[in-house]
């Protein structure tokens, strides 16, 4: 047999053997390939593709797949990005505007330059990913009917997820229109009503019934609800202002923050004087001050701690300062000064920060003899909100999940669940949305007789140190267009105008995609052993040949590949 004929029959990965010297070719010529050498036996570290949790996803109370939706924006797939977000959050266009974005606080990119502008990207997906068509109503799979009390973000979210599971859902809202805090707590310049209406219309497409103008406990007793529904979800929010024990606090001209915002949001002409003090350091205080500014007042925010301790979203504080809202830190009101029942001013006392209190913030302590007076036309109190539970039997307290308060269990036959601010006290839109979703899941489990899910294992988070900075250059964060200060302080036009698709894609390019493969091909490109192959979006290591050098893991920019010790 000639050597040529023999070579043709050889499989490329077969060992070439000669029965005798006569079979050997007359000169050294290759008859087989190196595939006969299974160099995988050299390996003591095995590269394994193992996606890990990015810190943004982990920080999102709603559990949004942030890394995933940003990857879709990068590919220009805005509709798919919105769809992905809507798996965990019914309102990307709303949270894309008003969320306090804990994701951005954890973003690994901030250690290189600045965090990704995740909220603006979410808004881009929420706005531009909406195709103008409604949602298809899900198949009605279950006969159970669920009543939801309260149409704020928690109630709406619970309704959305229950409707998607195929339940019949009705939402009861005390005000004339649904939306709760989204409608009357957040000013138009942060969340335009048109956006809210669009998102609500999508919920109607899902077959959710809205019963507005029915206050449970007043127009309708809770006991009556259970007649028509199998389960009740209470998401009544925290709508009552926390009272300050202020002498003279009932004088005309003293307003409560939320009540003030609500009246303005409902189109009422609220007359304010020029000299307005807003008491508080949270988002309600910021909104009240900026609304007062737009109504022609010259507001001053008085807060008993310093700027560092303010619970408001930092951007909101920044915007208030830009617009000319004044701040007096380390001071608190002690008395309202009145004449004939009318507010004339207030007496304040200066504070200093003492040791940390139970919230971890330093406790403000009054400084003796430091009182001072301000002449005022209005005083707006925005020192916190609490739930109004007057429709429930005396003494009932809500916490998230199935309500097992014996008084309520005694009074009602239908099982009751609770969520949102009324149950958690969390006070942010995204946490209310998350609470609503957990409520929907708990109700579904209850109605279907399913067991509690196993607690999820703590995921492996990607620390900044695992990002390969050889692949990333500092680049500034995207700045969306926004109205300039003079253009915005005289009206309620939306300030932020969002990112263009082009800006959004440039911003999405900044994403490290921590722990998530985005098919950059580095692993396959840098493999000296040609032992990695790609099939569509999946890579595969050929362990017959991989020698375990670790270059693929080292050159992976985002820690998708782990090196695992081979078992001996």
């Amino acid at each position: 047999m000639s050597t040529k004929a023999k070579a043709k029959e050889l499989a490329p990965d077969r060992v070439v053997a000669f029965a005798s010297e006569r079979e050997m070719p007359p000169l050294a010529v290759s008859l087989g390939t190196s595939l006969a050498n299974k160099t995988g036996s050299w390996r003591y570290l095995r590269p394994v593709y193992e996606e890990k949790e990015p810190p943004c996803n982990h920080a999102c109370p709603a559990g949004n797949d942030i890394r995933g939706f940003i990857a879709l924006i990068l590919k220009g797939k805005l509709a798919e990005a919105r769809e992905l977000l809507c798996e965990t959050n019914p309102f990307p266009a709303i949270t894309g505007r008003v969320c306090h974005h804990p994701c951005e606080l954890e973003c690994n990119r901030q250690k290189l330059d600045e965090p990704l502008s995740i909220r603006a990207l979410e808004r881009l997906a929420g706005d531009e990913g909406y195709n103008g068509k409604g949602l298809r109503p899900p198949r009605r799979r279950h006969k159970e009917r669920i009543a939801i009390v309260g149409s704020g973000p928690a109630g709406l979210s619970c309704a959305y997820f229950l409707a998607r599971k195929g339940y019949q859902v009705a939402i009861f809202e005390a005000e004339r229109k649904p939306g709760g805090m989204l409608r009357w707590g957040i000013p138009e310049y942060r969340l335009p009503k048109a956006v809210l209406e669009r998102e609500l219309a999508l919920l109607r497409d899902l077959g959710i019934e809205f019963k507005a103008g029915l206050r449970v406990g007043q127009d309708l007793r809770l006991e009556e609800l259970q007649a028509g529904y199998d389960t009740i979800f209470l998401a009544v929010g925290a709508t009552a202002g926390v009272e300050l024990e202020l002498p003279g606090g009932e004088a005309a001209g003293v307003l409560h923050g939320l009540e003030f915002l609500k009246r303005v949001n409902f189109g009422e002409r609220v007359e304010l004087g020029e000299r307005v003090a807003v008491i508080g350091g949270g988002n309600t205080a910021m909104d009240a001050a900026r609304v007062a500014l737009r109504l022609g007042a010259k507001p001053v925010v008085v807060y008993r701690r310093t700027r560092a301790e303010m619970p408001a979203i930092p951007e909101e504080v920044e915007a208030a300062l830009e617009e000319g809202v004044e701040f007096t830190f380390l001071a608190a009101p002690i008395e309202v000064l009145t004449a004939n029942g009318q507010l004339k001013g207030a007496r304040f006392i200066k504070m200093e920060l003492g040791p940390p209190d139970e919230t971890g913030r330093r406790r403000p302590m009054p400084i003796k003899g430091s009182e001072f007076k301000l002449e005022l036309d209005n005083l707006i109190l925005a020192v916190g909100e609490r739930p109004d539970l007057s429709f429930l039997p005396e003494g009932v307290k809500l916490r998230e999940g199935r309500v097992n308060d014996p008084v309520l269990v005694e009074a009602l036959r239908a099982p009751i669940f609770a969520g949102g601010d009324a149950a958690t006290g969390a006070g942010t839109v995204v946490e209310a949305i998350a609470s609503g979703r957990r409520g929907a899941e708990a109700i579904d489990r209850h109605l279907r007789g399913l067991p509690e899910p196993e607690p999820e294992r703590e995921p492996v988070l990607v620390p900044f140190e695992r990002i390969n900075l050889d692949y990333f250059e500092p680049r500034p964060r995207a700045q969306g267009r926004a109205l300039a200060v003079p253009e915005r302080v005289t009206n309620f036009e939306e300030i932020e105008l969002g990112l263009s698709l082009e800006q959004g894609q440039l911003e999405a390019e900044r994403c490290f995609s921590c722990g998530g493969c985005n098919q950059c091909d580095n692993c396959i490109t840098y493999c000296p052993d040609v032992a990695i192959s790609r099939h569509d979006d999946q890579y595969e290591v050929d362990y017959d040949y991989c020698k375990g050098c670790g270059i693929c893991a080292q050159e992976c920019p985002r820690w998708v590949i782990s090196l695992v010790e081979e078992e001996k």
Partner: protein
Amino acid sequence: MIEIKQSSPYPLRGVLPTDELMLSGHLACQGCGAALVMRYALKALGERTIAVIPACCWTIIAGAFPYSALRVPLFHTAFETAASAAAGIKAGLEVLGKGDITVLAWAGDGGTFDIGLQALSGAAERNDDIIYVCYDNEAYMNTGIQRSSATPWRAWTTTTPTRHPKDEPKKDMMAIMAAHRIPYAATASPAYPEDLVRKMQKAKAIRGTKFIHIISPCPPGWKSASELSVKLARLAVQTKIFPLYEVENGLKWRITLEPKGLPVEEYLKLQGRFRHLSPEEIRKIQETVDAEWARLVAKAKAEAS
């Protein structure tokens, strides 16, 4: 050629050629830079290529008789003869009317800087139509890490132990080749495969002697971790120790990648062969690198004006 399924039926990173003409199962050490650069070089040149390999690591890497890790013909030749053997093969191909086949001489730094320099100079002087690649791992690695004239100043090798590290600077091979006025000479690094492939393809399209000098990290010889080979190849460029440039006709110098100018220490500290360096020596290396870089920039500027 034995038919084998390609492992990347699409362009890597969107641009690199799909051909995989180097096979798995070769005998290079873990993390070998020389294996990686062969993979890229053959991607660039395609299957109508003949490789000529003198004594060097690749003699071993390609596999012993009767196996080969290359899907193109490979001719093993003596240490000092890579350029002359390649030139002879090319002449023979032309006689056979197969002048379109690229002949690739593929030698280490020992076979280029030291032992093969005379044959290489001869081929360059005759402007023989070959591509000569020197994959430079900066010592005689497969015989046991003996110093070569490509070994950097003060590096450890088994023949320049830390008590007597190398006292001579690395030979300026690119300047020697440019002085031959060959049509094309270029440097490349496995950390920048797109640049490497572009230069190989450019060389393929030019008639005459082409010289490509490729930095080639060697984990056992450099005493570096195997996973750091690409990072080291990148740092060599970004510290300006091994800048990426090309020279046309020995006169037109062009820098093809603007380095960040990271401190040389970033590169040195990852390698055991430099662990004994004193701060003073590191400072001197930095000064030399800066001066060499300034000279390179001046050459590139002189041509541009």
